[in-house]
């Protein structure tokens, strides 16, 4: 068993698997970060992902082009999140209840659309898949090669986006303005920042990335779509934002930790069959709870997170 665990091939494939599992979580968590930095808590990520996965799959299937699917999935995410945006920003109703509404509405709408188009099928429909990048010589380097040079394009996109997001929030003036909206919207408003507009942009970004994360599942990770394919990933992403302390670096580590423990538990199921799989399947969640417990992140949350805003209020 020890030979297996420490072989180069084992380690390489473990890390590969980690990145595959992490990619959708990271994209969606970044989306939620854009939301919460402007004070918009959206627990409807799972619903938006489902909608993105469905629209992405259908469009990818029709156009036979997974890229079109990804674009459509992202836009569908923006579109459905505008329901949440209008009721929470313009009508100032509760964010949690609206997020919950998305989680109920979006999967139902997805099922409806999918069955309208494909009918009730017993076999899963096979669509197109966005192939992984393969850079000849470089990707043959042990461990590092496949890890750095043999990934899905969207995986690269997710990590590049994470870096850009970190720069945006910490090093640029628009980024600081954006954060001000989540910390103290009234002060931001007096400085000439259009809070309402900013909040709409924030929910747009959240929808875009959550939709993209969903579409990744049905056009990159897999070429098939099954109802329930999102399987709670939206909630994992949501917790990754808290666990990551509303910082990009923390969020990357949080999603990587989840991806890694998930990849590890699947391998342990086969090399250590004596351990009941139920215990191993808990591992990613236990790790997340454990890390949350150790981090004491509550003080890092944007101060006006989750609060409705109105110019007239005093």
């Amino acid at each position, binding site marked *: 068993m020890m030979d297996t665990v420490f072989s180069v091939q084992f380690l390489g494939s473990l890390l590969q698997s980690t990145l595959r599992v992490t990619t959708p979580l990271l994209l969606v968590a970044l989306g939620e970060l854009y939301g919460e930095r402007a004070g918009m808590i959206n627990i409807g990520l799972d619903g938006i992902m489902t909608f993105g996965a469905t629209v992405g799959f259908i469009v990818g299937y029709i156009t036979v082009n997974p890229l079109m699917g990804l674009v459509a999935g992202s836009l569908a995410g923006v579109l459905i999140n505008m329901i949440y945006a209008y009721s929470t920003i313009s009508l100032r109703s509760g964010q949690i209840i609206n997020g919950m509404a998305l989680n109920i509405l979006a999967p139902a709408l997805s099922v409806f659309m999918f069955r309208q188009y494909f009918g009730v099928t017993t076999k899963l429909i096979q669509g197109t898949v966005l192939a992984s990048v393969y850079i000849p010589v470089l990707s043959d380097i042990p461990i590092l090669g496949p890890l750095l040079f043999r990934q899905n394009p969207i995986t690269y996109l997710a990590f590049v986006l994470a870096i850009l997001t970190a720069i945006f929030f910490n090093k640029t003036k628009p980024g600081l303005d954006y954060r001000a909206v989540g910390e103290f919207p009234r002060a931001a408003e007096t400085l000439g920042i259009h809070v309402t507009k900013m909040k709409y942009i924030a929910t747009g970004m959240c929808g875009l990335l959550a939709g993209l994360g969903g579409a990744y599942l049905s056009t990159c990770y*897999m070429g098939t779509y099954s109802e329930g394919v999102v399987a709670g990933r939206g909630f994992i992403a949501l917790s990754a934002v808290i666990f990551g302390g509303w910082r990009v670096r923390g969020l990357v580590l949080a999603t990587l930790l989840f991806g890694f423990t998930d990849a590890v538990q699947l391998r342990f199921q086969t090399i250590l069959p004596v351990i009941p799989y139920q215990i191993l399947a808990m591992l990613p969640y236990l790790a997340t709870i454990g890390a949350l417990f150790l981090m004491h992140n509550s003080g890092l949350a944007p101060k006006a997170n989750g609060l409705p805003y109105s110019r007239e209020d005093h």
Partner: protein
Amino acid sequence: MKVVSKRVLAVLVIVALSLTIIGCAGAEEGADSGEKTYKIAMVANASIADGGWNSACYDGMIGAAELNGWETSYSENVEQTDYVATFTEYGNLGYDLVFAPGNEFSDAVKEAAASYPDTNFIVLNGEVVEENVESIMADNTMIGFLAGTLAGLKTQTNEVALIGGMEITPAMQSIDGFEQGVAYVNPDANVSVAFTNSWSDAAKGKEAALSLIDTKDCDVFFGISSAGDAGMREALADYDDRWTIAQPSDLLDQFPDITLTSIMNDNAQLIGNSMKAVMNGEFGNKVFLGGLTENVLAIGEFGESANDVKDEYMEIVEGIRDGSITFDYNV
């Protein structure tokens, strides 16, 4: 006071309206009692289009209804807390047969069946039997044994794998049969089992398959994890020396290169059998176990990749059918 009386009025109107509707339904049934149309309903706790278990069950019901001239209906995504209410509803509506596709419905069926003696219930993979309840099941151990013998014959690495969804009784029966089947034809081969811990997470099935290839170099895969099986097949499609045995319907046309064959589970036969019993008035108080001889299980088309083992395998299948090859029911 005024508000309250308005509310009372509203409630009364609603009650009156619903009574009218129920009355109409009753009247309709009375009118065409000359030629009774039998009705069956399926209650699913997930989507009926999940591409796996519930799809196969739904299809089976539709197929059986077409053969026997029944009307169908279904409720899907029913939460556990609503099981009894949903069964009761179909009892109220006067359905002749209610189809519960899984052992998890047993308790709810028992409860609802007691109040509606004129409605019959079938529980797939169940154990409950009553005056108006039958349990029906495909022989899961035989399914596993059929898959196991083919996997054992085909494997080049002597490592075969089974991917399950969750550790439920039918799955454990299949695993038990699978292990016996592998051992029957190839005592040197080793069986690895992984669970996706979900019935809907297709991506998890893909990761599970890749992890079985990395850790054990498994080359023949049998999937019983519903949506996860689709992910497993996608993972295997990237290789040219890994194969799968499909279930519960013939999936050769979807992945012709990697599919050896399919173990087909004909739910239409299973459900049709119960429909006939209802029509003949012989329904109730038994468990029906369907295998090869009952035509509930069948072997599908063979893929090109199975050419080297096909003949030997069909001999084993015939052996199981005529009883010369036997296996144990340990679970």
